[in-house]
């Protein structure tokens, strides 16, 4: 078991957003989390990553058998949790190359590995760039600064390729992408799929799931996972809309 979430409650400024989420993710699986806006999808991603503005009021998150509660944001990242942001922040003055080199080497250090030398790092970076179809000039720019929506998302996928996480949570990575960018993002994910890692894809639309085929689909509604199923559930949702879930819940 890679990730196990039990009865997770989380709130921000006293307002409860997650009201008892249960989720289990095994190695080699792709899970999709769907649901209408404002039901807590992004909150769930942030809480797993350890964002401090959210208070976990009940329940626990186990990652590779360890309770994440006491781990800082960076410790979770070094353990192998990667969050692909819905709105990646711009960081002027920090080039992507420096940023990634620092991250890669800090993670290596955490794992007891020697840092990559400049040459090794560059070779590794070039290889990863090719893998996710990134053109070369992106990495010389400051992190996300002046990037288009599509460039930002591609940059997230590139970083995921660099850091090789055990669990990647992609928060609405498909939003704001045209069809070409969407394909690049999806191809990146598919190339990185391995028997020993897992993906949680958060999305509002079924569209992305045409490219990244999920093993499981969950519907998050009002802070709880109210429905789970196979990939057909996504199609059913697409067809019937979220009102179907709402009605079902009200009934």
């Amino acid at each position, binding site marked *: 078991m890679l990730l196990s979430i039990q009865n997770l409650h989380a709130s921000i400024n006293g307002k409860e957003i997650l009201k008892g989420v249960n989720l289990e993710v095994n190695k080699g699986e792709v899970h999709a989390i769907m649901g209408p806006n404002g039901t807590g999808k992004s909150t769930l991603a942030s809480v797993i*990553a350890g*964002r401090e503005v959210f208070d976990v009021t009940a329940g626990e998150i186990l990652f590779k058998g360890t309770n994440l509660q006491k781990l*800082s*944001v*960076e410790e979770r*990242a*070094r353990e192998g949790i*990667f*969050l692909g*942001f819905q709105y*990646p*922040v711009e*960081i*002027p*003055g*920090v*080039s992507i*190359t*420096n*940023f*990634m*080199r*620092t*991250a890669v*080497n*800090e*993670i290596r250090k*955490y794992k007891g590995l020697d840092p990559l030398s*400049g040459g090794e*790092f*560059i070779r590794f970076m070039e290889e990863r760039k090719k893998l996710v179809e990134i053109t070369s000039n992106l990495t010389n720019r*400051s*992190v996300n600064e002046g990037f288009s929506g599509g460039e930002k998302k591609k940059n997230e996928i590139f*970083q995921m390729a660099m*850091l090789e996480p055990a669990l990647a949570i992609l928060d609405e990575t498909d939003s704001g992408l045209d069809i070409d960018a969407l394909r690049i993002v999806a191809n990146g994910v598919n190339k990185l799929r391995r028997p020993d890692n897992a993906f949680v894809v958060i999305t509002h639309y079924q569209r992305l799931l045409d490219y990244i085929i999920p093993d499981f689909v969950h519907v998050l509604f009002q802070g709880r996972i109210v429905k789970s199923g196979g990939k057909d559930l996504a199609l059913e949702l697409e067809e019937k809309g979220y009102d179907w879930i709402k009605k079902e819940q009200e009934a």
Partner: protein
Amino acid sequence: MVQLFSRHRQQIVSCDTPGMSTLRDQALESFLKLGFPNTKMEAWRQTDLTECLARGYDYPVERMPEEDTQKVFRCNIPHLDTAIIGQLNGWYVSKDVPLMELGNGIIMGSLAEAKKKYPELVEQYYGTVADSTSEAFTALNTAFAQDGVFIYVPDNVQSPKPVQLINVIQHDENLFLQSRNLIVVGKNARLSLVHCDDSYNHQASFSNIVSEIVIGDNAFMDHYKLQNLNNSSTLITTTCFRLGAAASLESHYLSLNGGLLRNNIRLHFNGPHGIANIYGIYLMDGKQHIDNQVFIDHAHPHCTSNEMFKGILDEHARGVFNGHVLVRKDAIKTDARQSNRNILLTDTAKVNSKPFLEIYNDDVKCSHGSTTGQLDNEAMFYLRQRGIGEDSARMLLMFAFADEVVGKIAIPQLRQRIEDMIKKRLQGELQICEACVLHCSTPEQPVEFYIDLSKI
């Protein structure tokens, strides 16, 4: 002070032309009228000199014996090829050649000597750029200053390598110094000047340095002011620039250490199409105090000015920024930008920022911005989510913050060194380093930075 002046008048005026002596008398009179500035004055509200002035100081009126110049004036920045000239305790260090005349017509050396040797040339510019009637410290300087540096780059001459002026204070008594520099860059000429203010031991000092810099039509000057003094030093610098038509200036104020630093920057566009970029970075901690006052006088049309001052303040440090852009009535097509950004690292550090625009013309593009805060939380989370530790993330963001200014340094070796110094400074490692003049590191101890920020 007047007594001191009258007692030593003979000595003080010894190198002057008659015109300059008159200037001295007038300046002294102005100073007596103005007195030392106090915090009731708008321009000095945030900078209190009481404590600094209360310390006892020696007022050296006679030239002091020269130290072993080889020992004091060495710069160990690798591959930085500069023509070094030095000043020790306010006096030009001559090495028996008080004034150098280079083959291309460049004159470089002691201002006192230049007054004797080229009275007309000096008189043409001396006292014409700095204001000795309303600014107390300039008046004081004009009245008392005896020596300093004179650099003259004739029309159409490009100085082949940067000139590095190292101003060192090393004395066993507390010193009150007045030094005066005059730098003239002729039409179509080019000069790069690295001006280092340094203290060498822990003795208290009070320096009042006035520099007049004339940049001729279509000339270019690249100017660096590197400040790295001990915590008991007070440094008041007044640098007055006059830019001719289509002249351009790149000026960098890099303040890494000092007890109380006050930089008065006065820039006057004396013709159309001038361009001035003034950058500043200050990293202060302890009880250090930095006050940057920038006045830009857009007196002519089509000029562009850009100020960018950034600071990181730790512990009890205090940062003051006072920008004043004046756009006069006929200065159409003026483009003026002012920006001051600060990061406070503690609840005891303080910032006062006053970016002021005074505009008497509608055909302009002016803007200013000021922000004070802490490191961006979103960015911190993003970096940490990628596995970068909190300290490293903080360091990375602070360095990026500073690098916007440092990155503008055009001399690569100098930029590299300043970046290294900033990294060390951000780690709190760099206090005063006794090993060399610039308080950089010594080559035997290479800069170690936890995160490797070197550009790949």
